C-alpha cells in the first residue's frame, strides 16, 4: 500500500488536513445533540443556573423514566407509539399504493393511461401545506380527527414513489414479463413473484425515506390531533413548551427530544445494511 500511490488518494499532509476538517465538521454538528443529551441527564436547577453543564449528570434514569411514563401532556411512550404507527403506516401505505399504480401505468395499456400518470405527477406540485385546508375539511367530515386513519390516509398518496417505481419498472426488460407470460403467470402473479422481489432494494430505500418523512410530520398531526393521547412525538415536543409564565421542564423535554431521534436513527442504520446488501447483490 505504501510505495504505489493510489490514483485518487492524497498523501501526507493532505490526508491529515482532510481528516481534521471532517472531524471539526462532525463535532460542530454533533455539539447541539450532545448538549441536548447532557441536559436530559441533569436536574432542572443545573440547566437554569449558568454556566450550562457540558458533562452528563446523574439523573439519566430518573428523567427518561419520567418522560416515558408521565411526560408533560401525555406519556412519551404513548407519543412514540403514535409516531411509530403513523410513520410505518405512511411508509407502508405509500409504498403499497405507489408500487401498484406504477405497475398499472407501466404494464397495462388502458385508456387515459398518460392522463393518469400526469395527474399523479401533478400532485407533486401540491405539498401538504398548500392543500391543508380542504384536506382538513375532508378528514374532519369523515370523522378522522384524533385517529390513526386521520394521521395516515391524507398523507399516503405519493407521486414521488410512484415515479420512482415507474422508472425502475421501465428498466426491467420486457422479455422478463414475456417469459412470465409464456410460463403462465397472470399479471398479479408476475407482480408478486417477479416484480416485487426484484424491487426489494428500491422498497428498502424508499421505506427509509418515507419513514423519516412520516416521523417528522409536524403540521398535519398538529391540526388533526387535539387529544394529547393522540399526539405524535415531533409535535408533542412543541406542545411540551409551557405557555405563559410556567417554567419549562427542560430535562424531560430534552429526554423526549433524544428519544424522538432514536427510531429514525435505528431505521436508517438497520435498513442501511439491508439495502446496501441489496445494492451489492444487485442483479444484472
Amino acid at each position, binding site marked *: 500500500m505504501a510505495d504505489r500511490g493510489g490514483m485518487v488518494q492524497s498523501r501526507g499532509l493532505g490526508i491529515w488536513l482532510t481528516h481534521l476538517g471532517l472531524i471539526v465538521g462532525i463535532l460542530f454538528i454533533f455539539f447541539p445533540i450532545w448538549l441536548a443529551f447532557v441536559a436530559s441527564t441533569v436536574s432542572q436547577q443545573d440547566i437554569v443556573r449558568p454556566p450550562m453543564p457540558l458533562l452528563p449528570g446523574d439523573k439519566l434514569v430518573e428523567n427518561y423514566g419520567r418522560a416515558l411514563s408521565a411526560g408533560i401532556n401525555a406519556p412519551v411512550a404513548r407519543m412514540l407509539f403514535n409516531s411509530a404507527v403513523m410513520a410505518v403506516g405512511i411508509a407502508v401505505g405509500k409504498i403499497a399504493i405507489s408500487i401498484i399504480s406504477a405497475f398499472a401505468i407501466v404494464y397495462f395499456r388502458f385508456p387515459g393511461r398518460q392522463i393518469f400518470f400526469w395527474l399523479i405527477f401533478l400532485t407533486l406540485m401540491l405539498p401538504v401545506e398548500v392543500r391543508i385546508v380542504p384536506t382538513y375539511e375532508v378528514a374532519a367530515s369523515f370523522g378522522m380527527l384524533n385517529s390513526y386513519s386521520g394521521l395516515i390516509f391524507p398523507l399516503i398518496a405519493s407521486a414521488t414513489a410512484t415515479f420512482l417505481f415507474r422508472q425502475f419498472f421501465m428498466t426491467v426488460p420486457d422479455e422478463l414479463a414475456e417469459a412470465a407470460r409464456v*410460463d*403462465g403467470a397472470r399479471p398479479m402473479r408476475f407482480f408478486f413473484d417477479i416484480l416485487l422481489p426484484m424491487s426489494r432494494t428500491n422498497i428498502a430505500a424508499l421505506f427509509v425515506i418515507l419513514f423519516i418523512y412520516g416521523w417528522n410530520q409536524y403540521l398535519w398531526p398538529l391540526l388533526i390531533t387535539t387529544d394529547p393521547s393522540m399526539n405524535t412525538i415531533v409535535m408533542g415536543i412543541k406542545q411540551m413548551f409551557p405557555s405563559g409564565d410556567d417554567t419549562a421542564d427542560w430535562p424531560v423535554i430534552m429526554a423526549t427530544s433524544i428519544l424522538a431521534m432514536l427510531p429514525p436513527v435505528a431505521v436508517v442504520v438497520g435498513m442501511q445494511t439491508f439495502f446496501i446488501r441489496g445494492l451489492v447483490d444487485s442483479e444484472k
Partner: protein
Amino acid sequence: MATVTLENLKKSFGKTEIIHGVDIDIADGEFIVIVGPSGCGKSTLLRMVAGLETVSAGEVLIGGRPVNGVEPMDRDIAMVFQNYALYPHMSVFDNMAYGLKIGRVPKAEIRTRVEAAAEILQLGPYLQRKPRELSGGQRQRVAMGRAIVRKPAVFLFDEPLSNLDAKLRVQMRLEIKALQRKLGVTSLYVTHDQVEAMTLADRMIVMNEGTADQIGAPLEVYGNPATTFVAGFIGSPPMNFLDAAALENAPAGVSLGVRPESVRLVGTSEGRLEGTVAYAEPLGAETLIHLRTADGQALTIRQDGVLPVPAEGDRLGAVWDPSQEFRFGPDGRRLRQDR
C-alpha cells in the same frame, strides 16, 4: 408435439404493415429456422406464433387448433429469449420450475422433471445458483431447461445465441441441434446468422422486409435461390451479381449471379471476364480475391488456400461453369427460363 401452420399471416403496427402474409405448414418434429436481416419481421413472426403479438390478419394453428385468441401459456409452447430472460432473484431450479409451479404440477414431479432437464443440459451442479453466478453459456442452458421441463408441443427460439461469443455459439448450436433431434419437438428458430440457419434448419424461411422470399431446405435455398436477396443473404462471402448485359446478349436490368466458389482465375485471354486484383485475403484454408473489372463491377473469388495468391494489381481473367450461374430479373426474382 404438434404441427404448426401459418395461413397468410399479417402484422400491422398502426397503418404500417410489416409482415405481408406468410404461409407455411410445419410438420411435427421439424426444425424451422426463420432467417433474415434485422428489421425484416422475423422476430415479430415468431412472437405471433408465441402469442406475444396479436395477429392482424391470417391464422396461426398449432396442432391443427387455431390459436389466434389464445394466451401464450395455453398454446403449449415454450420460448427461449435472446437475453435469456431468467428471473434474477430465483435459483436455477426455481427458474426452471416456475412454469410448472404455476401449472400446479405436483412437487415431486417438478423435481423429477427439472432434474432430468438439468441432467441433459449438464446443469446439475448449478441448480441452487442464481443466474448472475452463471456464465453466458450456462444461462443459455437454463433458458433452454426452462423450455424443456414444460414438455411443450413447440419450441420457439428468438436469437438465442446472439449474446454468446463465437466459440460458444458454435458449441451451443450443436447442442441445440442434438437436443431437438433427441426430443423431437417442433421448433421455430429465429436468427440473423445464415450459418446458424444453414446448420440447424430442416427447412428455412428467408425473410426480406416482411415477406418470406423463399422457404426450403438449406441446400436447396443455397443451390437454387429464388431472389437476389436470398442469393445475396445466404452464403458468405455473398454471391457476385454482374450486369448480364455486359457479358452476353441480355435485356437491361437482368443480373447474373455466380457464387465466389464457382469462379476460377485464368489468364486474361481465356476469361469470360477480366479485371484487376483489388486485394486478396488469404485466410489459410482459402483465399478470397476481389477482382475489379474495367467497367467498375466487383467480383469475389474464393479459391483453395494452396493455390498461389495473386498480387494486387495483377490483371486476370475469371471463368465459371454456365450451369452454376443464376439470372435474376430487374425485380430481383429469378428468371427460370434458363433451366
